[in-house]
C-alpha cells in the first residue's frame, strides 16, 4: 500500500504544481529514489541472512559498466549491462562467501569492495583516479529522462522486493536467515537461495549505480565505490524497517528528506542532529518506521 502510494506519487511528481521548488524537489527526489532502491536491494540480500557491505561495490561496478558501455550500446542496454556486471561479480563473491556468517560475511564483503575500488582506481580504461565523464541518459534528449529512470529502478526494486516477500521465496529466504542448517535439512536449497538473492540484489544495485552515473555525469572510484554508500544501504532499511518493502522505501525518502531539510535549515553541524535522530529512532522505534504502522507480533 505504502509502496504503491509512493510510486504513484513519484510518477506524478513532475506534473504536480510545485511552483518554484519543482526542479529542486525533482532533483532531490531522484537521489532519494536511488537511495531507496539501493536500500531495497540490500534488504533483499539481508532477508537471506547475508549482511553485505559490498553494495557500494555493486553500485560502483554498475555505474562504471553502464558509463563505459553507454556510448556503444545506448542508455537502456548500458544500464542492463551495468546490472549484469554487478550480478556476475556478486555471483563470484557469493560463491566464495557461502559459508561465512554475520560479521565475518560483512567484513569479507567489505574487503571485496576495497579490492574492487583499487582495481578500478588502477585500471586505465576506467579513467583511473582522475575519474570518468559520463554521457547523460538518452544523450540528454529528455530533460526528465534520468528522473524517470530513477523512478523505474525504484519501481523495479520495490516490485522484486514485494514479489519475494510473499510465497515460496519468502519462506526460503526467511528460513535461510533464521537457521541455515535447519533450513537445509528441511529441504530448502540454501546455496541456490543465497546466490540468487545475491545476484538479484547486486543486479538492482548495479542498475542504481548506472542511473546515478547518468545523473551526476562523472564518476570517480572514491565516490562510486565509497564505503559511505554501503553503510547508507544498510542504515536505511534498519531505520525504515528490515525485511519489508515499505521500510527501505519510506526510510530512504525520509532519511534523504531529513538530511536535506536539516542542511537547508541548520547548515553547519546538521549531521549532529542527523546522528541523534538515528539513535532516537533505534531507542524508540526498534522495528523501524514501519513498526509504527504494524502493531502485530513478529512477522518474518
Amino acid at each position, binding site marked *: 500500500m505504502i509502496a504503491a502510494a509512493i510510486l504513484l506519487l513519484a510518477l506524478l511528481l513532475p506534473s504536480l504544481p510545485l511552483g*518554484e*521548488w*519543482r*526542479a*529542486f524537489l*525533482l*532533483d*532531490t527526489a531522484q*537521489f532519494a529514489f536511488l537511495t531507496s532502491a539501493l536500500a531495497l536491494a540490500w534488504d533483499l540480500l539481508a532477508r537471506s541472512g547475508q549482511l553485505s557491505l559490498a553494495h557500494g561495490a555493486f553500485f560502483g561496478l554498475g555505474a562504471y559498466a553502464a558509463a563505459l558501455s553507454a556510448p556503444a550500446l545506448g542508455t537502456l542496454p548500458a544500464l542492463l549491462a551495468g546490472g549484469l556486471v554487478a550480478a556476475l561479480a556478486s555471483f563470484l563473491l557469493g560463491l566464495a562467501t557461502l559459508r561465512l556468517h554475520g560479521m565475518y560475511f560483512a567484513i569479507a564483503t567489505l574487503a571485496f569492495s576495497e579490492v574492487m575500488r583499487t582495481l578500478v*582506481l588502477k585500471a586505465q580504461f576506467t579513467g*583511473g*583516479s*582522475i*575519474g570518468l*565523464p559520463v554521457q*547523460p541518459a538518452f544523450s540528454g534528449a529528455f*530533460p526528465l529522462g534520468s528522473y524517470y529512470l530513477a523512478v523505474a529502478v525504484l519501481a523495479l526494486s520495490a516490485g522484486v522486493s514485494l514479489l519475494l516477500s510473499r510465497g515460496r521465496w519468502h519462506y526460503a529466504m526467511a528460513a535461510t536467515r533464521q537457521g541455515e542448517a535447519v533450513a537445509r535439512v528441511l529441504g530448502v536449497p540454501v546455496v541456490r537461495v543465497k546466490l540468487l538473492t545475491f545476484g538479484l540484489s547486486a543486479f538492482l544495485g548495479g542498475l542504481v549505480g548506472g542511473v*546515478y552515473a547518468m*545523473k*551526476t*555525469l*562523472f564518476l*570517480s572510484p*572514491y*565516490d562510486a565505490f565509497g564505503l559511505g554508500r554501503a553503510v547508507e544501504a544498510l542504515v536505511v532499511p534498519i531505520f525504515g524497517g528490515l525485511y519489508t518493502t515499505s521500510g527501505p522505501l519510506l526510510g530512504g525518502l525520509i532519511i534523504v528528506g531529513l538530511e*536535506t531539510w536539516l*542542511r*537547508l535549515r541548520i*547548515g*553547519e553541524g546538521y*549531521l549532529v542532529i542527523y546522528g541523534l535522530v538515528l539513535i532516537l529512532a533505534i531507542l524508540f522505534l526498534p522495528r523501524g518506521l514501519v513498526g509504527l504502522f504494524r502493531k502485530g507480533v513478529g512477522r518474518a
Partner: protein
Amino acid sequence: MKKLWVVLVTLLAGLSLAQTTLRVGVLLPISTVAGKAALNGVQLGAEQVNASGKVRMELVVVDDGNAPATAVPALTKLMTVDRVDIVIGGLASGVTFALSGPVKQYQPLFLCIGAASSVVEQAFSDYGRFFHYHPWDYHNVAAALEFFKYLYDNGARRVAILYEDGPFGSAGIQTYRQQLERQGYTVQAEPFKSGSGSFTAILTRLKAFRPDILYWIGYDVDALPIAAQTRQVGLEPKLIYGAPPAWPVGFEKNSLSNDIAGMTAWLPSVANAESRRFVTLYRRKFGEVTDEYMAPMGYVIALSLGRAAEAAGSSDKDRIAAELAKVQMDTPFGPLSFKPSDTGRTRYQGFNQSIWLQFQYLEGSRRPVFPPNRAARPLRFPGNY
C-alpha cells in the same frame, strides 16, 4: 506638496538606479577547511562591496556537501527557488564536473573558485558564462617545475615523488615525470593512500634510490607522518618539498616541519598592499589570521564581481559578465584579469602559474623562498631532516 512628492520619487529612483542589487548563490563544501575558508572570504568580500554603497550583494549560501549527489540538487535550488543569476562555487573538481550539466541547463554566470582539474576545463569548454579564477592543474605543474629547475641548478639530480592515489595526487603525475626527466632529473614515483599514516615501507624502498628531493603530493593529514618517518627511516634527502592544498594547523610550531618546502598561492605574510589589507579586514571580522589561500580567493571573487556589477550598473548577468571580462585589478595574489585559457578551451581564465610561490618552514613560520622576486629569505638547501 506635489513638488515634494516629485522630488522624493526622483530621489528614490535615483538611489535605486545607483544601487544595483545582486543575489549571488554561494555553493561550497562548508564542512571542509578549504570550503569554510572560501566562504569566509566571499562573505568578507561581499561586506566590502556593500560598504561601498554602489552595489548590494545578497549571498545565498548552500552547502554542496562535497558530493555530487548533494551538490546537484543544491545548485538546482539556487537557480529555481532562490532565483539567483550568479553562482560562486565549484571547489572540488569531481563535484564541479557534476555541476556542469545543471549549470548548462540553467545558464547562470558561474564564478569558479577551485576545480583545477583540466577534466573540468573540458566539461565547461562550450559554456560562455564560466569564469575560472583558480589556475588549472597544468599551471600548478608549470610553477613547481620552475622551482625544480632552480633546484637542479643548485645541484639536485634525483627526485622521489610520493603521490596520493586519488585524483588530486595522480592527475599531473605523468607530466611531472616527463618534464622532470627532460630537465635532467632521475625520477622515481610511488603512490600512497592518503591518511594511512604509514610511509616507512615506501620510504625504505626509496632509500636505495638516494633522492636529493622528496616531493610529495598529498593532503594535510600526510604532512607530519612523512616528516617524522623520513627521519625514522634515515632517508636524509636534501629537500622535502610538499604540495598539499593545505597544511596542518600549528605545523610550523612542530620542529619536524623545519626546512620543509611547499607551494601555495598565498601566505598571510605576502607583502603587497592588497594582501595586507585582506589580512587586516579578515582579522577584524573573524578575529584570526587564516593560512588558507581559498579565503583570499573567495574575497577576490566577491570583490571582482562587485566591481563588474558597478561598472555594468545593472544586475543583468550578461552585462556583468561583459564587464568582468574587462576587469583589471590588484589582488592579494597579484594582478587579476581574464584571458582565454592556455589550451583555448575556456574563454575566461583568471590566474595562472604566476600566483604560485614556494615557501619554506623556517624558524617556526612559513617564508616565501621562490621565485626570487617574491622571496623573503634564501632557500635553505640542503635542508636538515
